[in-house]
């Protein structure tokens, strides 16, 4: 049962590596919110170990406590012993998922999402097309007018309200090419990871990513057979599903023969970089997974090395930055996005107080744990408002949606906009391109 599943899945060596110093606690959002030892990384690891040691049974309280974790992994960089908490919580959730029986409607929703939707990019894009039809045909307006939205929980209503315009076409279709040549001299061949949700809801950001990369001298390959990264699967206890996707992505990018693989979503990038851990017990794939993982970089890392900010257009606005947790704590990318923002001529960079703390989005956390997510978002927006920024930058689709919802919730619409780092950089760069075109003509 659950106990056996946990003993099976949990990495006991890593459980033992936690020395219980508690240095993780100030970094943990759920501990700060509750002050309750069990709601901290040290507490959750102690609970996992207690089950593995036979000290306690994994009861409902245990499961609830594991579900309350955001999975933001803010505990990892501050852990002196380097315990990979993110892996431990995913192993726990996988064990819970293996034995848990959901009500029929939850299991069908999970099956649709994890088996029939996220893994199939075509279907994601078709769904994007439907969403686009809903948004553009006037149906959305009609639906909102009827008040039928009120039957949805508050957090879903908030999300419906800020949903960006979806695209029915993926990045590759929109570009009409698989390989986009570098502008000028080629410095490297970059594989672009377009993501599943990014490709539907933020196709504009993907196009901008390609443009920034090619203008920086990269030949960009949109590996045709790539699929969803599997992060939402892994965080929700569907690690086997995540492994299946990992194998497909590795094969796709090996075939594309790229120097590096670039992601523009912290949530995806962090898991892509951990494919070697995910497939650690897969003899056939482990070596290739290492090849893949070692090549994954965030777009901000690549651009930091290649761009020439002195050519950028001035942007006389106040800019602040909310970090993506998995970009910061998973990929350990902290300085590059800030450096890029600070390099924009004319822009005033205002540090966001606690910009390194989770915004409460955390994958689908804001939908399943609305109370905790709401508290975290409200605290976040107080700090955001205090920056008096015109532009709130982030670097992951989930965070971006949550920040958009937060701006609306805090009554800041019209005063502040939430923008992906890539889209902001494309703005200051696009002026340059326009100038060049004028020169040519």
């Amino acid at each position, binding site marked *: 049962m659950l106990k056996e599943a946990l003993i099976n899945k949990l990495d006991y060596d890593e459980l033992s590596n936690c020395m*219980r110093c508690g240095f993780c606690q100030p970094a943990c959002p759920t501990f700060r919110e509750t002050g309750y030892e069990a709601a901290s990384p040290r507490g959750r690891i102690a609970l996992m170990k207690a089950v593995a040691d036979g000290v306690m*049974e994994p009861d409902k309280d245990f499961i609830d406590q594991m579900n309350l974790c955001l999975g933001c992994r803010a505990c990892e960089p501050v852990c002196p012993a*380097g315990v990979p908490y993110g892996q431990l919580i995913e192993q726990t959730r996988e064990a819970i998922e293996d034995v848990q029986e959901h009500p029929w409607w939850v299991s069908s929703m999970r099956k649709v999402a994890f088996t029939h939707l996220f893994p199939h990019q075509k279907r994601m894009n078709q769904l994007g097309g439907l969403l686009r039809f809903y948004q553009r045909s006037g149906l959305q307006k009609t639906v909102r007018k009827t008040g039928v939205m009120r039957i949805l929980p508050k957090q879903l209503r908030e999300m419906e309200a800020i949903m960006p315009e979806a695209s029915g076409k993926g990045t590759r279709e929109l570009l009409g090419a698989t390989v986009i040549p570098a502008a000028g001299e080629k410095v490297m061949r970059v594989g672009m990871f377009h993501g599943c949700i990014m490709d539907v809801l933020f196709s504009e950001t993907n196009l901008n990513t390609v443009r920034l990369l090619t203008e920086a001298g990269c030949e960009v390959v949109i590996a045709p057979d790539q699929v969803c990264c599997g992060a939402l699967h892994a965080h929700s206890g569907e690690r086997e599903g995540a492994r299946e996707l990992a194998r497909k992505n590795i094969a796709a990018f090996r075939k594309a023969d790229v120097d590096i693989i670039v992601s523009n979503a912290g949530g995806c990038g962090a898991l892509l970089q951990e494919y070697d851990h995910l497939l650690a017990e897969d003899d056939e794939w482990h070596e290739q997974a290492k090849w893949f993982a070692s090549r994954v970089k965030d777009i901000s890392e690549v651009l930091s090395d290649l761009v020439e900010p002195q050519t950028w257009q001035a942007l006389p606005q106040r800019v602040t930055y909310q970090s993506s947790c998995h970009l910061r704590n998973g990929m350990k990318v902290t300085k590059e996005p800030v450096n890029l923002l600070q390099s924009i001529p004319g822009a005033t960079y205002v540090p966001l107080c606690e910009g390194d703390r989770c915004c409460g989005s955390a994958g689908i956390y804001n939908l399943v744990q609305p109370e905790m997510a709401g508290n975290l978002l409200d605290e976040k927006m107080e700090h955001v408002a205090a920056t008096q920024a015109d532009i709130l930058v982030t670097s992951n689709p989930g965070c971006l949606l949550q920040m958009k919802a937060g701006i609306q919730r805090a009554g800041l619409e019209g005063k502040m906009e939430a923008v992906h780092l890539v889209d902001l950089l494309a703005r200051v760069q696009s002026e340059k391109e326009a100038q060049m075109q004028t020169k040519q003509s």
Partner: protein
Amino acid sequence: MLSESIRSELVAIVGEKNCLDRQEALVAYSYDATPMQQALPDVVVLPKSTEEVQQVMRVAARHQIPIVTRGAGSNLCGGTIPVGGGIVLVLSRMNQIVEIDEQNLTITVQPGVRTVDIHQAVEARGLFYPPDPGSMVISTIGGNIALNSGGLRGLKYGTTKDYVLGLEAVLPNGEIIRTGGKLMKDVAGYDLTKLLVGSEGTLAIITQAILKLIPKPLSQRVMLAMFADMDQAARSVSDIIANRIIPGTLEFLDQGTIRVVEDFKQIGLPTDVAAILLIGQDGEPQTVDRDMERIAAICEKNEAVQIKVATTPEEADDVMTARRSALAALSRMRPTTILEDATVPRAQIAPMVAAIQEITNRYGLQICTFGHAGDGNLHPTCMTDARNEKEIERVEHAFEEIFAAAIDLGGTITGEHGVGIVKAPYLEWKVGAAGMEVMKGIKHAFDPHNLLNPDKMFAKQSRNRVVVNRA
């Protein structure tokens, strides 16, 4: 298991939400930061006020249930492990700063306030609360007082005991006592304030404290000095003090620690040196500059192979990284990290480090030493694996010898971590049989029924003193 009637008495005081006996809560409050120590309580109670603490104490006294008081659970002596079950009384909800008095330069706090929050609150007003234990980002002031915590600034500024002016505490009979006050002078009777500081929750439950503040130093600077020979480093420490300079920080890393830190952080530390001193001074800018120059000259005279004085805050940060990463680097080596705190008079640091080295080699263990050279407070740190029983046995023997060596050099078994469970068998080595009797008498006077943190401080049996031939 607690009877239903006692449980409902406790619920009546603190409410259902703050009286927890579900499995999850019992496990979560069964440990602290001490390796290899764990025991489940019967119930976890989280009071919000002194009155609630008093009522819980009365229930416990009436039913003869032990109480283990706890803050963040960051201690390293097993001080908050509920060995005999009973109530774990968590004071984290009593977390208010009651008052900062800028006339008298005091701060009044509840026990659950985090140490770092005190630092931030007073430094925002140009004031300073110096004690800075390594765990200050999580530790609470109640725990700091109960264990008389030290830290990096001990040499120049003293430890927690030097800053506690007054206490409010609940006695085992349920009465409330208030000791001291906002007073620099107070000789009215026995100094109960000082007695309660470091009493490890065995005498009373501290519910409020008045702490002394001082003006915040205007500037600070740091430097690193590296030595090819341990004696040169030790001589530098003695010479600095003999020259009437008291540095704000005077920390030490031995070769083992340097190698592990460099391996982990790659900050360019030379791995062939025997010791590194990290020396900092704070105060008036001119005084600080002059002291730094003199300290550098002293280190040079003692043949330091390299001296690095930080000139910018960023460089200072780099310099501090070496010391700050010590524990992190060491704890990544093996699953279990045992951090001890044997302490000697500072003139005895070199022989103590040599003794630790010799003992480590003889037992075939991995022990690296870093610590507060300025006050003789060393942290021999053993990297081991709790699952390897044979090795753990050797670790225990090695530490016994390390304690004995410290005492032989005029030192003590613990400088700042406390006795708790883990040092209890050795306490008699330090204080002697007569000292133990006095301490037991004090315990009995406060807590005749042994309700507060039983099984701590006084072991059922003292260890026999090991006799080692150190020829």
